[in-house]
């Protein structure tokens, strides 16, 4: 049943510190649900599947905004919307996140939906998540006890579960510098061009080392498992190898072992896996002529 908006309460903090205090104090009674763009929360409220009745509006927390480059690294505030991310000039060095941002829902969703919300919502189909994994992103979180930093890879613990304390907020994500000469690739396979939940979403980074062998490989997948995953066997099949048709074939076989796709109404497992293999093949072909054999 749809949740009546009139029964809900929203707390408006003055700043981040105040927000963290309110959130912490709320644990004694009903936990405040952080509210960013609301594009996930409203869906839950509409379906009547969100139990909470009290919300913490993050909008007043200026500390959660801003896209800043610091010594080659990039810090993106949790409240930054996908539209802002896609348009920001500093994003040029992290093109995969720009591409992912442009794939989230459609223009209206990109105007409201935030990267913090995408992370916290922890859907296996979250489009920005494989990018964060492929870029070795760090996530800064805060509570009344202070700030801490968690690698994105370690943040996800299970289906829609994060290694976050109930009174912690995501403050920002940090993207390390992408090694020079990296080949980068993003692809979302959905059922339609907009407003579509991914069947497969992929972000890949390949860095050529000295002698032509790949020195750094990241192959990250969404919608293939309960959490966003890297295909470690396929990565191993490429790491320290030169681009060749042989390497591509190994990676393809390894991928079949890495990925045990989720079977749901959106797409059957068999199709997801075959689409994933094609996406990987496409990436390899586009990154180096050698893969074409």
């Amino acid at each position, binding site marked *: 049943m*749809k949740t009546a908006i009139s029964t809900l309460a929203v707390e408006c903090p003055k700043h981040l510190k105040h927000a963290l205090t309110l959130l912490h104090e709320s644990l004694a009674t009903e936990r405040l649900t952080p509210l960013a763009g609301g594009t996930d929360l409203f869906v839950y409220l509409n379906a009547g599947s969100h139990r909470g009745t009290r919300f913490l509006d993050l909008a007043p927390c200026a500390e959660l905004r801003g896209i800043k480059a610091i010594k080659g690294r990039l810090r993106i505030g949790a409240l930054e919307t996908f539209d802002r991310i896609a348009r920001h000039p500093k994003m040029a060095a992290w093109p995969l996140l720009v591409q992912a941002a442009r794939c989230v829902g459609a223009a209206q969703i990109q105007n409201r939906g935030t990267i913090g919300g995408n992370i916290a919502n922890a859907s296996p189909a979250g489009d920005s998540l494989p990018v964060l994994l492929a870029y070795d992103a760090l996530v800064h979180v805060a509570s009344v006890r202070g700030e801490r930093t968690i690698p994105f890879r370690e943040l996800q613990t299970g289906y829609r579960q994060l290694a976050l304390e109930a009174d912690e907020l995501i403050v920002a994500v940090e993207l390390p510098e992408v090694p020079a000469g990296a080949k980068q690739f993003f692809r979302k396979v959905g059922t*339609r061009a907009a407003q579509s939940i991914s069947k497969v979403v992929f972000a890949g980074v390949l860095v050529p080392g000295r002698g032509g062998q790949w020195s750094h490989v990241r192959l990250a997948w969404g919608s293939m498992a309960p959490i966003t995953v890297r295909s470690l066997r396929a990565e191993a099949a490429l790491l320290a190898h030169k681009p060749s048709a042989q390497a591509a074939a190994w990676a393809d076989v390894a991928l079949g072992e890495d990925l045990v796709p989720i079977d749901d*109404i959106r797409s*059957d497992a*068999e*199709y997801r896996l*075959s689409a994933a293999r*094609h996406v990987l*093949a*496409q990436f390899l072909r586009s990154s180096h002529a050698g893969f074409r054999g």
Partner: protein
Amino acid sequence: MSDGKPTQAPGTPPAGMAIPGNRTMPKEDRLTPPVWEGGRAAPPNGDFRMIGKRNRKVEGLAKVTGRAVYADDLVLPRMLHAKLLRSIHAHARIVSIDASAALALPGVHAVVTGADMPTHFGIIPWTEDEQALCTDKVRYVGDAIAAVAADDERTCEEALKLVRVEYEPLPAVTDIETALAHPEWQVNEKAGEGNISKHVRLEFGDVDGALAASDHVVEGDYWYEGSTHAPLEPHCCVAEFDSTGFLTVWSSTQVAHYLHRDLAKVLNLPTQRVRVIQPVVGGGFGGKSEPFSLEFAAAKLSMVTGRPVKILYTREEVFYAHRGRHPMRLRYRTGMTADGAITGTDALVQLDGGAYSSFGLVTTYYSGQLLTAPYALPAYRFDSTRVFTNKPACGPKRGHGSVQPRFAFECQLDKLCEKAGLDPIEVRRRNFIGERTKTVNGMRVTSNGFLECLDAVERESGWAAKFRRMPYGRGIGVAGSMYISGTNYCIYPNEMPQSAVQLRLDRSGRATVMSGCSDIGQGVESVLAYIVCEELGLDLRDVRVVAADTDLTPVDLGAYSSRETFMVGNACLDAARHLRLKIAQTLAERWGVAAGEIVLANGVACASSDPGRFAISVKEAFQWAEARHGTLGSVGWYQSPKLGGEYRGGTIGASPAYSFTAHVAEVECDPETGFVAVKHIWVAHDCGRALNPVTVEGQMEGSAYMGFGEALLETQRYKDAAPGHAFGLHHGPSLLDYRMPTSLDTPELHALIVESVDPEGPYGAKEAGEGPLHPSIPAIANAIHDALGVRCDALPFDPPSVMRLLRAGEARANWERARAQVGGPR
């Protein structure tokens, strides 16, 4: 719906359709329409000033500025809100309903159940098998059981949770096979036997002989996935039963007249004390062409509480209301001679009807009857069976009943062309049935612009340079179709007109058109205004259209079967011409000129022989005429001539005029992922005459878009039992999960209007709202074959299905072979 004469069908007459004893059939005597000098197609004032021009729609500004008043915008004093309790089982007996706790909840005013209005109703009088709220059984997940009225929706929802329903689950039937295999699991007790909703078998000519004598015969099995309309506006109504015992219902319906009748029947009220008003409707596509639970429930709750009651369906409920396109399994055998002449067709069709009949009787006929043009089909047989299943009822969706067989047949034709090594456009041309002719099943064809349609799509698409000539993965395909411009019967037997208009002219220079017709966005109110402007020389701003209010407007049957422009347009043309004649005679007398010289155009009335001397404003002309004849008013009506084949069911599919369409679709497919991108659709449509080219193009593009969505994306599936939900639940009753194409997915649509000028249509117009959808699906399927060498015989053509086809067959080899046939530069 028989023609009254016990004539023998050319095939086996279908069983069923017995006429209840208390109903009399119409005599077939038809009213004679007025005959106008120069005919109905001619402009009244020498040349057209309004018709054929790119005019605005009369309600357009209100819609784009958010001022149009839809049913949900209505708020009446003391109004209550109501909600329906819906079944969580696909099939179950209702053992008991206890609403006492719900009634006790503060803010709740009333609860009604099926027992409060048990009378069966149904849009087709021969298959009245629905109840406003179920009394003893639920037949699909979402079937309505009870309704609660309260101060607000929120309280309604709380109250619904308190209604205790005790169910006894029954085995559920969710597909055609199970429905046929288990007649003992009867879904709908009104079925004659088992789960058979309707069976029709008709044969015209010697089909077996024709097929045996063919050079090529192709046999194919096709699957048409059902789809739903998804109008932007969910169903909504407000009902008010006043202290005098008079019921007014505002509803987002496309058939105010039928709703009027059924409300009176189910609520046991005299029809003259019921008024139905259709506010602005936000799309229907056939999904609002019969009464629904909400209208009865709101009305009953208003009668019980003495207060106005509103019900607004959620999007999820719109999926349960459904009445969408029937899933169909189709088996076709089609023959052709070596030089490309179609010899015969044998069709076996099964329709998955869902839980109720809806329009199903007609759908079952349409699944065969509407295939007999634009090609001459010398011999034809179809055997169609509609079954009941425990799913939301299927009904009419844009292109009612004939989109599915058209898909199968046009794919058959493409396969035959491939076999015979002939160009599919050329073959379609060779089989052209012609103008002023009759189809094999006895349908009269008047105008026919199909050849021009083929020419247009061939030319505009660059067909000759593309077909079988593009690289692997890219392809182009063609398909054709026909559709009705209204049917020649009201769906309940009577001898009265199908459409009517009352027109009044005011001495201020204003005209008011009143008609029961239903504008659901297709623009019929604008059509009426254009006609009045054309005939009387008025500006569009000086005509008001009052439509679909059963107290104020004469009966029109509503917006279905693409009838409005043709039928109510004709009624309006007659009404306007009667008054034009009066005005012309008045002026001719005063000026001493011939009445034929009088021109009413651009706000001026003048004599064409000497406009310098004899000219006044149209407003003055109205005043002169009023002084001479008394108050100015007129009526016009439309009744179709006697049409159809001389056999039982021979009138179903008979229409006063048929529209014709050809599509060429161009696709780009990714053989690695199975993804099909439709790049272009060229749509050529013979609409007789485009009264407003913009709205015709809108209909053509909208139709092609809708067909494209059904071809590639839309799925209508029901889940198996699993934790958290019941068996038979719709897979995704939301606009996020039910995947219709977005604007980004949509191909370039090229609308090419063809005007054959029909002798009987208003100014020669025929339909444009449904016909242009039909060829979308087969044109895309045929294009995919040209691109990849696989035959998509089952909808939707989504990536997993295309991948399966690519893996299963020798796609590439088939592609090479087809290419070799028509290959080489021309």
